[in-house]
């Protein structure tokens, strides 16, 4: 079947090319009468050919993909190039000239932008920015190093006579070096996507390939200008201008991209009513950013990259789910299509007798130096970089990084743009570039996978981690946080924390719709998840116990709506849909772990207690620890995560544990009954006072906001741990925290939090979490009613919640 496809393809192509010849004939005929049907080839020629080429490329990919055993060994890109060769051969045979080749215009304006846009849009931002220092180092320094050394070495070799009668000036060599030096994003993506190395390694190589465009453009233009100027007119001023132009080009390009990214994010904020055109914006604006940067002679690739990088978060939040999916998918389609066409054309372009000027020395030496200098450069830079990295880059990873420096179509495109008036040996350079591209893509691409396996490079973590590992990960995390607190050292997350604060305060407010902002809010997410969990448990419970229970507790659902109130009316449908048993609705929701569980539940029916998947449970219930909340954590405020259920639970538990061990340690003392009048020493009082205030602060929040209470942080006032308290006098029993007291505590020091009993009854039938949850951009005034006691039945009325903060 596939060979028939091939045959069809071949016929199609030769048909097209031969038709071209026939067209000339038609024109010469004299029109003698009305023709019922005419063959208007010229009218449709260009669009037809374009469409046909796209079809051919895509069909080629289809054919290739139907041999997975082959694609496992040889990367797709290599196969596509080979296909291009075959195709080129056919066209050559039909036409005796190469009618189609990869022209710079087509490449740079129609094929490249979408690939880069896709790369930027799906860039893992966190990973990217964490490793940005290293990436910039490789991109800038590495490229300059490769270009300089290659150019100089080749020139030296020419002077040494290794290239025969060749005579190319030093500047031209440097120019050639600069276009050959750049690692190509398209090729890197194509090869690495089949190899799945660990994410740091990938982001290093890939990030480098994207960012080095800034350098390449500058180097190319500078040396091009130098070549045009001629040798003698280059002086220090020009060189300095060259250096300055690097900064301008690179930063300017990035800024243009950022501006467009922000623009598209802003636009997406207002498209609520016309969701159908939402996906269009990013494509148009992304392309415009590319063209604008190019128009201003700035780095176009950098521009598009940063456009994608900056807008992804906002677009994904603002747009409707279907639009988000559309954008992602369509981008991939375009990028993939472009990539395929590029590689096919790279193959076809080779079959062109006119470009091949062969000089053994030149070609071989270029190949050799490209490889060698890449290795040397990478190793030196990594050695230096590792001094500053927390996790040094392993030797094996460095090897792969060097080996993965693939050249691709960008180099070829630049080569074809060379001015052949000034550069006599343009053809040689083009030919050599093609050879280098083939060598890296085909040879290095094919050998990459075995190389990676042989060297046991750390792969992307796919393996399922064991439970003990998961627990251990968390233990590590918590330990780190604890040690950070003890030693007072500000962690590596400090800058990131600052950025998060800035970003939340200014950018999210400006660029996100109010709905999206609510969803962003951490509490809301927690709330949402908890609700989902409640709903799931509720249904489970109902199913387990039989329909009667279900009916009896139906009132709980009504409360749900009432309690949420208007504030959430817009997102309520989301929650309601999510809470229902509809798996489709669930899948819309980005809360992944819960939806997975939900989905499984609906698929498998009622879960038996014994059948609980321990992994899921662990995943879902592990306390997240503070590092993940760090963006809300400010070291200057008391209200550290006061709006977090998790924190309260941990806190209570810790305190309870301490008290229990305190109690058992101080056996022999009469169990404390009341905290009566304190006429004791001041110190004791102060201690209790501080103690109780702090607990009060937490507990009122815990109990549902009797009063919004903001406690001022006193430096040095800690939470006394009664277990460890020295026991100076028999008044020790007083240090039992208020909520454990049986009687009404004394009003002067302790607030009457009768509700603040310790027992936390958590059964699905108590949908206590479904309470008005104040969302605010400052984490101070929110209260989660997680820990209300079972005394709900006493019909205590919650005090009316304070009015929402004005910044809403």
């Amino acid at each position: 079947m596939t060979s028939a496809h091939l045959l069809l393809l071949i016929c199609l192509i030769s048909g097209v090319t031969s038709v071209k010849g026939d067209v000339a004939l038609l024109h010469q005929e004299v029109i003698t009468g009305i023709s019922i049907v005419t063959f208007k080839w010229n009218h449709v020629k260009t669009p037809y050919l374009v469409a046909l080429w796209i079809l051919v490329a895509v069909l080629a990919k289809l054919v290739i993909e139907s041999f997975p055993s082959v694609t496992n060994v040889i990367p797709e890109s290599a196969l596509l190039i080979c296909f291009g060769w075959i195709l080129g051969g056919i066209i050559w045979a039909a036409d005796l000239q190469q009618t189609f080749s990869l022209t710079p215009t087509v490449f740079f304006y129609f094929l490249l932008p979408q690939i880069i846009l896709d790369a930027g849009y799906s860039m893992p931002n966190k990973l990217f920015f964490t490793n940005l220092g290293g990436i910039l180092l490789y991109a800038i320094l590495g490229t300059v190093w490769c270009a300089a050394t290659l150019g100089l070495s080749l020139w030296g070799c020419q002077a040494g006579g290794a290239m025969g009668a060749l005579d190319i000036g030093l500047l031209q060599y440097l120019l050639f070096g600069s276009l050959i030096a750049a690692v190509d994003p398209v090729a890197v993506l194509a090869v690495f996507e089949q190899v799945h190395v660990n994410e740091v390694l990938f982001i290093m190589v890939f990030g480098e390939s994207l960012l080095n465009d800034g350098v390449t453009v500058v180097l190319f233009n500078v040396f091009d200008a130098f070549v045009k100027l001629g040798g003698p007119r280059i002086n220090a001023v020009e060189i300095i201008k060259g250096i300055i132009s690097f900064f301008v080009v690179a930063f300017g390009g990035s800024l243009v991209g950022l501006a467009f990214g922000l623009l598209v994010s802003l636009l997406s904020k207002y498209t609520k009513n016309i969701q159908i055109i939402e996906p269009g914006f990013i494509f148009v604006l992304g392309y415009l950013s590319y063209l604008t940067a190019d128009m201003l002679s700035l780095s176009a690739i950098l521009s598009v990259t940063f456009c994608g990088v900056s807008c992804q978060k906002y677009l994904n939040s603002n747009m409707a789910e279907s639009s988000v999916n559309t954008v992602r998918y369509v981008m991939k389609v375009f990028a993939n299509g472009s990539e395929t066409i590029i590689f096919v054309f790279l193959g076809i372009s080779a079959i062109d007798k006119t470009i091949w000027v062969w000089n053994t020395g030149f070609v071989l030496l270029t190949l050799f130096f490209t490889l060698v200098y890449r290795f040397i450069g990478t190793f030196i830079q990594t050695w230096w970089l590792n001094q500053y990295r927390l996790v040094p880059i392993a030797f094996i990873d460095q090897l792969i990084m060097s080996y993965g420096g693939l050249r691709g179509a960008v180099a070829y495109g630049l080569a074809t743009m060379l001015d052949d008036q000034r550069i006599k040996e343009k053809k040689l350079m083009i030919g050599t570039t093609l050879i280098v591209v083939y060598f890296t893509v085909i040879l290095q691409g094919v050998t990459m996978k075995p190389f990676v396996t042989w060297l046991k490079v750390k792969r992307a973590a796919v393996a399922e981690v064991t439970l003990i590992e998961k627990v251990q990960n968390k233990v590590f995390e918590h330990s780190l946080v604890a040690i950070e607190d003890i030693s007072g050292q500000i962690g590596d997350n400090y800058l990131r924390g600052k950025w998060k604060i800035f970003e939340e305060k200014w950018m999210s407010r400006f660029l996100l719709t109010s709905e999206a902002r609510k969803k962003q809010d951490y509490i809301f997410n927690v709330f949402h998840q908890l609700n989902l969990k409640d709903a799931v448990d509720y249904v489970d419970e109902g199913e387990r116990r039989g329909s009667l229970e279900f009916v009896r507790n139906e009132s709980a659902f009504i409360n749900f709506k009432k309690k949420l109130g208007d504030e959430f009316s817009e997102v309520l449908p989301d929650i309601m849909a999510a809470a229902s048993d509809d798996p489709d609705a669930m899948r819309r929701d980005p809360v992944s772990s819960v939806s997975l569980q939900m989905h499984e539940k609906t698929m498998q029916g009622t879960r038996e207690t014994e059948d609980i998947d321990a992994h899921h449970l662990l995943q879902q219930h592990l306390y997240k620890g503070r590092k993940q909340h760090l963006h809300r954590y400010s070291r200057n405020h008391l209200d550290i995560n006061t709006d977090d259920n998790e924190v309260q639970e941990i806190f209570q538990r810790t305190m309870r544990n301490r008290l229990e061990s305190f109690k058992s340690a101080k056996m022999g003392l009469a169990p404390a009954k009341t905290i009566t009048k304190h006429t004791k020493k001041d110190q004791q009082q102060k201690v209790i006072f501080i103690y109780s205030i702090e607990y009060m602060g937490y507990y009122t929040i815990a109990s549902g906001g009797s009063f919004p209470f903001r406690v001022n942080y006193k430096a040095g006032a800690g939470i006394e741990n009664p277990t460890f308290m020295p026991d100076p006098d028999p008044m020790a029993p007083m240090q039992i925290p208020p909520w454990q007291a049986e009687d009404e505590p004394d009003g002067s020091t302790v607030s009457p939090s009768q509700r603040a009993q310790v027992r936390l009854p958590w059964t699905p039938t108590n949908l206590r979490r479904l309470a008005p949850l104040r969302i605010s951009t400052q984490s101070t005034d929110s209260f989660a009613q997680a820990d209300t006691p079972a005394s709900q039945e006493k019909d205590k009325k919650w005090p009316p919640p304070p009015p929402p903060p004005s910044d809403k």
Partner: protein
Amino acid sequence: AVGPKGIFRVIERSEQWSVGELEPEDFGAIRELSMNPIGDRIISAFFSPGKETVDFASFVRILAHFHPTETSRSRDGVQPEPANSRTRKLKFAFQLYDQDRDGKISREELLQVLRTMLEMQVTEEQLQSIAERAIQEADLDQDDAISFDEFRKVRGVDLIRDQIDNWEY
């Protein structure tokens, strides 16, 4: 290394610094530790079993566990293993679980840790099943407990290499 700020903080908060030693309640003064599920365990890790105080040297020694791993040190056997070696770090982590220091993490000890780290909603039976599963996965010699060696090798992947090198601040 420990930042000077940090030491001063602990000193400030303690009212008994003049003695030159820290007691557990001084750590208790650090509020954030109460928010940490394993905060209390970390605190007790600073104190050798049986001792009620920790002097400055021991304090720093424990903190030294968190120094970046030195892989270049040659193990000539004569030098005592440095505090920040991988094994020592792992031992430290192991002891967070193994409170009674018998060299094994029993099911009860694992349960205790899990209890502190998992949210309140998890029922006792769920906890039991998680602990059961965890021990099953890691226990190679079938003694229903996790020894230090089993702890190191989880699932054939050396836990040391993957995790502990990142254990720094």
